[in-house]
């Protein structure tokens, strides 16, 4: 019979040179299996003298442990190598393009709507809606713009016939201003009122800077205490927040709207060059909105006593705000559904607007 020392050396040698897990298993069977040579040696122990048996048994156990350990070590080594080779064969060119995911966009007008709501919301303005088709009372008369008023011709109005009346003054109009929502709000609600009314507006005008449909946001405050100074503060706070600037120069010019008095237009500072328009400090002014103290006739038309209540109103173009803030050059392109434009100027669906979380991301990488 082979000496156990020899057996050990030979087996460890075999393990060390084994080329695969299969070989290791064979070695294990041949040495430690039921009929393995070491197992046979173990079986022979019982025949030995107790002293010898004790000593020889210990020796055998040590060897057995050594071999088992060597087998285990080698097995781990081999399986690691095998896995490594398997993985090597699974090679993929990871520079290949990913599956195409179509991510849509939010239109700039919707984005601006959300920003405007976020800002005025902080100031307690609720959002009011009204119909796109209006009667002349809400679009004009109640706004202190009676028939034959020159302001009615200033806004080239789209009319829709009223089949129940031959009188032209009864025909409906596609609203020329979101101001009509002021009236609908005051008819339903008693002061104090703080609303903004964003929405589609329509005028019969179509050139580089005018489209027959555009978007306005109207603002209205009516209570007992709001002053022209508040109007200035409110709008200054708005433009500063909207353009995300620490400061912005503003000026007010007296103007005229039938439904406010005093009326003003607000300009913001900017720097104009042939190719660029930068909002903020600069030598130029840019008209951004019209505003004023609500005309007493408007309050009266809604059954509100102008001696007791007062407030202000303002209106501005959402599309125009989008153009100024996001550098979109042409108003007409807003309504052309050009997928290239929508992808470029549109906003990622998760680019949400809040005053505390931020109004806008700086782009968000387009996919």
């Amino acid at each position, binding site marked *: 019979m082979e000496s156990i020392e020899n057996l050990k050396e030979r087996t460890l040698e075999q393990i060390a040179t084994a080329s695969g897990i299969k070989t290791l298993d064979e070695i294990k069977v041949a040495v430690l299996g039921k009929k393995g040579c070491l197992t046979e040696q173990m079986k022979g122990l019982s025949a030995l003298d107790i002293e010898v048996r004790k000593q020889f048994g210990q020796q055998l156990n040590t060897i057995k442990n050594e071999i088992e350990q060597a087998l285990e070590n080698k097995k781990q080594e081999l399986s690691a190598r095998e896995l490594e080779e398997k993985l090597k064969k699974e090679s993929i060119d990871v520079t290949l393009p990913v599956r*195409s995911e179509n991510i849509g*966009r939010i239109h700039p007008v919707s984005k601006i709507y959300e920003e405007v709501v976020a800002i005025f919301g902080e100031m*307690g303005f609720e959002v009011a809606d009204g119909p796109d088709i209006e009667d002349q009372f809400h679009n004009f008369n109640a706004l202190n713009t009676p028939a034959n008023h020159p302001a009615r011709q200033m806004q080239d109005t*789209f009319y829709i016939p009223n089949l129940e009346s031959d009188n032209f003054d009864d025909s409906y109009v596609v609203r020329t201003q979101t101001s009509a929502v002021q009236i609908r709000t005051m008819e339903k609600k008693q002061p104090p009122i703080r609303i903004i009314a964003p929405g*589609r507006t329509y005028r019969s005008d179509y050139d580089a800077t005018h489209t027959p449909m555009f978007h306005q946001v109207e603002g209205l405050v009516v209570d007992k205490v709001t002053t022209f100074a508040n109007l200035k503060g409110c709008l200054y706070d708005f433009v500063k927040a909207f353009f995300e600037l620490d400061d912005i120069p503003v000026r007010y*010019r*007296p103007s*005229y709207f039938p439904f406010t008095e005093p009326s003003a237009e607000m300009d913001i500072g900017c720097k104009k060059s042939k190719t660029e328009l930068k909002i903020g400090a600069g030598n130029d002014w840019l008209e951004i909105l019209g505003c004023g103290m609500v005309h007493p006739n408007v309050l009266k038309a809604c059954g509100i006593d102008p001696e007791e209540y007062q407030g202000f109103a303002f209106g501005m173009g959402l599309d125009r705000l989008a153009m100024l803030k996001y550098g979109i050059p042409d108003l007409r392109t807003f309504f052309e559904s050009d997928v290239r434009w929508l992808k470029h100027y549109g906003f990622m669906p998760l680019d949400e607007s809040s005053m505390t979380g931020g109004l806008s991301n700086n782009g968000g990488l387009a996919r």
Partner: protein
Amino acid sequence: MKFTLSWLKEHLDTEANVEQIAETLTKIGLEVEEVINPFENMSGFTTARVEDVQNHPDSDHLHVLTVNDGKEVLQVVCGAPNVKKGMVGILAHVGAYIPLFNEKIKVGKMRGVESFGMMCAEDEIGVGTDHEGIIELPANAPIGLALSEVYQADPVFDISITPNRAECLGVRGIARDLAAAGLGRLKPLKINKLVNSFKSPIKVKVEDFKACPVYTARYIRGVNNKAETPKWMKDRLTAIGLRSISPLVDVTNYVNYDLARPLHVFDADKLKGDICVRMAKDGEKFVSLDDKEYVLDNQSLGICDDEGVQCLGGIMGGAAKGCSEETVNVLLESALFAPTCIARTGRKFQIDSDSRYRYERWVDPNSNVLGSDYATQLILEVCGGEASDIEIAGEENYQPVTTFVRPARLKSFIGMEVAADKIVEILTRLGFETKEEGDKIWATSPTWRGDIEGEHDLVEEIVRMIGLDEVPAESMPRSYFPVQVLKPEQRRVVTVKHELASRGLLETVTWSFTDSRLAKDFRRGGEAVLLCNPITAELDEMRPSVLVNLLLGLKNNIARGYANVSLFECGPEFYGRKPGEQKLVAGGIRSGMTSKKHWLKEERLFDVFDVKADALAAVAAANGPYDSVRISTDAPAYYHPSRSGALRLGNNVIAYFGELHPLVLKKFGLKQRVEAFEVFLDNIPLPRNNKDKAKKRLELSALQPVDKDMAFIVDASVQADDIIAAAKNADRQYITSVGIFDVYEGENLPKDKKSVALTLTFQPKEMTFSDQDIETLITKVAVEVKKKIVSAQLRDA
């Protein structure tokens, strides 16, 4: 409204420069659009001496000049008859822009002789109207001077006048406002009182004093309308874009722009009988001075003689009785017309005129005689002649409004205190007569202001003059903690948009109008909502569906080479003419391939299940009762009849989806398949208790769910939705989901039959399912499906 600096200074004594004037105008509400300096963009012109004149070798009238501009000596070919050696004129160098020709001077050859510039005539550089010869400056004029060193530039202001400031449609009104703002002193208007003269042979009569409260006429005999309009007047008119026509017409135009006082002149010899101001008869004809014929109605105010309407009162003169070069005797009209009458007639006949523009807004009602006197004086100066006494019908006795302002109220309204004496000072400078009484300052407005009604108007005047920028800015008082400002039905629109965008659709915004010819197929039973005055024939109807414009958008994108398109829009569709007869819709289309060619080869055409998914996602985002939605196959006729459906909550349709009908697409010129959806947001009910934000309690089972598959053979016409509903209904407690993983028709199956394979999830509640439990559930499903679907047979696994 345009005017020149020199014209302004006719009325305003001021030291202010152009910039200060412009800044002040804008500050007081007369917004400056532009200040045009006539020489600003004119470079390349200098004074130059003609040192030698030679005859052109090849022409009778051309000369070859040697010209010295102080820097160089140039050869210039010139055809002017007045050219002579030694004269100093204006040389346009090569590159100089000539406005009259809209061209730049180039090196040219005239009949073989090179020319390096042009000696200019007055009209060529806009300093006059002469074109007979080249400009001749005094012989001792220095050479090498720029245009602005030779000619006094008279800058032109272009300002926009709001409708309430009609008096500023005259230069004097603007001057008065500037003076009130502290920019100088208003000069008195110099009008010589006319001495008693002869009586006008033509009398005047007014039938309708409501429409024409005052009418005056003055007969001026022996005028010479061939006389030259004075240069100063002509220059001013030309500078603001008016053409000089004849001295009589020029004077009326001048007074109109100087005093905002419209006038009219008739050739008195052409008038038959006296003047009668009356409403026209229905059908009465009138030919305007631009030779257009109008058929009048009985609300059109006419200035008539015995032969009919000769002038549309306050709007436009007539051709028949107008002045010409030969006019010798003139009747000068200066009158007052009611704004409403003018506005109605002007709008009805669509006549725009400077006169209508002013009457419609406000003309000083007490300026009829003054305007007549002023114009008469100018006519006599220019054309000679002799003026009669003025004929007046009606009385020039307009009583202006007297109202008050309370300094305390001003403070609580504006948020700034203004002292009473400051208020009085401002109002006085604007022409108001004031009187202090208790806490009120009473003010009677000047007659040239038609816009003053009450305290708010006076407040505006005061704040305007102080300057809006002087008012402090105070932030809105606001609650410490913001509250939700979007109502649930507003908020969910935002959510729906973001959901659809995140599903790969590009949000667009299209017109609320559309093309009625294309919209026809999309009307939902209602009549077309057509505009009276569409901007183009293609935008003549309020859209009955958002799809029409989306399809047009698709078509344009395909034309640009982008055929794979997913678009949506959230906006109104209209089903009636009245306010409120509109619905908010989220509509979308998908067409083309889901992606460009890709190495994974997963791209495919968009199909009906893409848009069905969009519609369902929108309903879920809109907080709709998603689980109660049933699908029916009755979408409108513009959808493919057998590849479309409706999402319903009971009878309430909340969405349509499907492929669009090829015949409809053909009308748009679209050849590729288009999938579409329309979600009617207004039809989706809001959760009953929107305030209760708590979600339903989550029941988590410790026991594993079991998935089992079953297949049924059914008639091919059976709808999958019915099978799913029946399977779910078999056991509401343990069956938690039913899916379909295979639909098969063809080999091994009878014709008109199909196999539908379900995958069911059973969720045990109390203890793990035994095989028997699962068998029971499967049997329940088989029984329920067979009960609901007669043709169903369980297929052996």
